[in-house]
């Protein structure tokens, strides 16, 4: 098995993704959950760049563009998510995700 750079990159991103996933699943602090999600997004971005760098692609900049959009959306997601965290905190005086299971206060 020949581990060429693309494989390395992909494994790298898989690892990052799973770290994020584990964090998300294992932690109860909502902020950390959100950060885990951010990590997963980053892992996805890594893949885009990796494929852009090593993969054959007809439009040269597609990977880059996708990452840009992804970053922008991630920023929006972070803003909304953390605002939600604050809202949750206001509501239940802590940020434990498992307690935030009601649609109604």
């Amino acid at each position, binding site marked *: 098995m020949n581990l060429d750079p693309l494989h390395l990159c992909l494994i790298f991103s898989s690892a990052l993704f799973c770290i994020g996933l584990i964090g998300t699943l294992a932690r109860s602090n909502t902020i950390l959950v959100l950060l885990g999600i951010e990590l997963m997004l980053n892992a996805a971005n890594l893949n885009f760049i990796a494929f852009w760098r090593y993969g054959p692609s007809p439009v040269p900049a597609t990977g880059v563009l996708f990452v840009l959009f992804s970053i922008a959306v991630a920023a929006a997601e972070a803003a*909304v998510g*953390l605002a939600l965290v604050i809202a949750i905190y206001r509501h239940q005086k802590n940020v434990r995700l498992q307690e935030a299971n009601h649609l109604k206060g």
Partner: protein
Amino acid sequence: MSLPLLLIILVTLGAAALAMALRNLIHSALLLIASWAGVAAFFLWAGAEFVAFAQVLVYVGAVSMIVLFAVLLTRRSRADLAVAPDSLGRAFSGFLAGGAVFGVLVGGVLSSPLPGSKAVEPTVSVRDIGTQLMGPNAVALLVVGVILTVALLGAVVLAATEPKPDQGQAQEGGR
């Protein structure tokens, strides 16, 4: 396979793993920022410098701020920052699920035939990105802009709405 890449991978993954494991939220957040910076470094290494700078600007510059703010706003005392240990069951199931996914992914990656690395490193200038964004992808750009605006407004509304006036804590009205 170069030394810089390995270094980047090591730092990134290490920072991320540590961040997800630490109790201290601030340390977690800072380590995550380091991890993001690592991703940016990867981008730089891969030759996508524009994306790298954007990553730094957005994650290290902006998202980190929000995270830190959120951390500081959702605690009552300094001790709060050290999160109570999570239930072992949840941690275990999390590891299990994550590990399974990792296994599947690595397995998938390793078993897939992938194109070999390109002979020439692809380059993309800022101008190219600009024309691509403004040309074929203009609609997407507009949509992203709208999303960002709406998200910002939504975040402001969410964070600024107070349930009842008497519950107010000593909070700065952040965003």
